[in-house]
């Protein structure tokens, strides 16, 4: 596929595939290429959305509400460090996604035979006020989920 700069930029505005193309092009560009002085920064390749994460996790299977306990503060004083826990009795794996983050996925935790509870707590980054979703894959192969809204205040005077 032949691409000149103009085409790349035009495509870049078009979607994820083109952005990936841009990144690939940047990597394979000959070392002698000099960037114009005002070249924009390399775009941050957007990650999969929360929806895409859930679709991959469930393989497209239906998800029912309930049976998952998602614990998070209603208001987080700082979005850098938000305590969250996901618990689901009978789950073999849990997926946590953040619908308002640039990258939707937060973690996938798989419980092994020595797990004492089907529960995991961690601390996460939330870019803004948003819903977080915990999806559990149950041992019988079904999927369940719970949603929580976290309001993120941009607190913390100064640096």
């Amino acid at each position, binding site marked *: 596929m032949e691409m000149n700069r103009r085409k790349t930029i035009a495509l870049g505005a078009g979607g994820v595939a083109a952005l990936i193309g841009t990144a690939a092009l940047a990597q394979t560009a000959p070392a002698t290429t000099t960037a114009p002085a005002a070249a924009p920064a390399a775009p941050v390749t957007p990650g999969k959305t929360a929806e895409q994460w859930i679709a991959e996790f469930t393989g497209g299977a239906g998800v029912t509400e309930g049976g998952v306990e998602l614990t998070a503060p209603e208001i987080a*004083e*700082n979005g850098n*460090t*938000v*305590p969250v826990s996901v618990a689901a009795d009978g789950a073999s794996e849990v997926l946590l996604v953040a619908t308002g983050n640039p990258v939707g996925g937060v973690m996938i935790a798989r419980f092994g035979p020595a797990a004492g509870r089907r529960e995991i707590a961690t601390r996460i980054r939330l870019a803004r006020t948003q819903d977080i979703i915990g999806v559990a894959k149950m041992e019988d192969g079904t999927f369940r989920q719970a949603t929580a809204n976290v309001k993120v205040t*941009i*607190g*913390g*005077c*100064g640096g």
Partner: protein
Amino acid sequence: MTSTHLAAAMLALTLAGTAPAQADPIDATEIVINDGEIALPTRAPAPAYLEGVLPEVRSGWLYRDEATRAMQMDDFENPGMVFADLGLDSWETPDGTQGKSCADCHNGIDSMKGLRAAMPRMNAAGDNLWSMENFINDCRVNRMGAEEWGWNSAPMKNMTAAISLQSRGMPVDVAIDGPAAAWWERGREMYYTRFGQLELACANCHEENSGKNIRADHLSQGQINGFPTYRLKDAGMVSSHQRFVGCVRDTRGETFKAGSDEFRALELYVASRGMGLPVEGVAVRH
């Protein structure tokens, strides 16, 4: 209306628009850590020089939200403790041309018990006010033959965290008389001096308006008994001088440097405003 006055007016409006639910610190009298293993008082009577100014002195922990408070109530949930651990590692690691570690002269780090509570204080020669960072660098350069650590460098903050932890629970007790009196006076002067385009003094936020909200921030008394502290905003350890820099910058002012005469004087004065509060070792703030 000049832009400065406009900004000040907007600030006043913001301060006035405080949500009642968050207008005051919580009532707790103690920070109970590790299920009761340690209990740190959160309040102390105001020292004589703050009579009529503050009803009592209070830990900044009281002003934080539940999730932030919880992180300080368990040494395993407190992310600052991992940096104190790193400080302890370097306490025992030789460095510099003399091949010595801190432990070679000072033995166990528990020999530092009480130091944090008395910081900053006059140096041995009695001609300068030193923060803990100055004492550490004096050892490094003159006894160990090692390079100075930057005031806000990771190894320095790890070390001050490890040393501060040895004084956890001991009441802040800084000397403000004798040769330190002039430094204290200078710090007090700074506390009430308005800086920056917003023309804000420390006292405007942390004395006149503590307990109120400035935008999304619940203003504390600005106590430093919990420093160095793990700050969620920075996701790392923060020294008191680093915080002073942030505050002055927020006034849209030119800040002094961490470790400067100005900030050491201010550190002494602000420490003295928390006289009687316990050293929190490594606190967690937002």
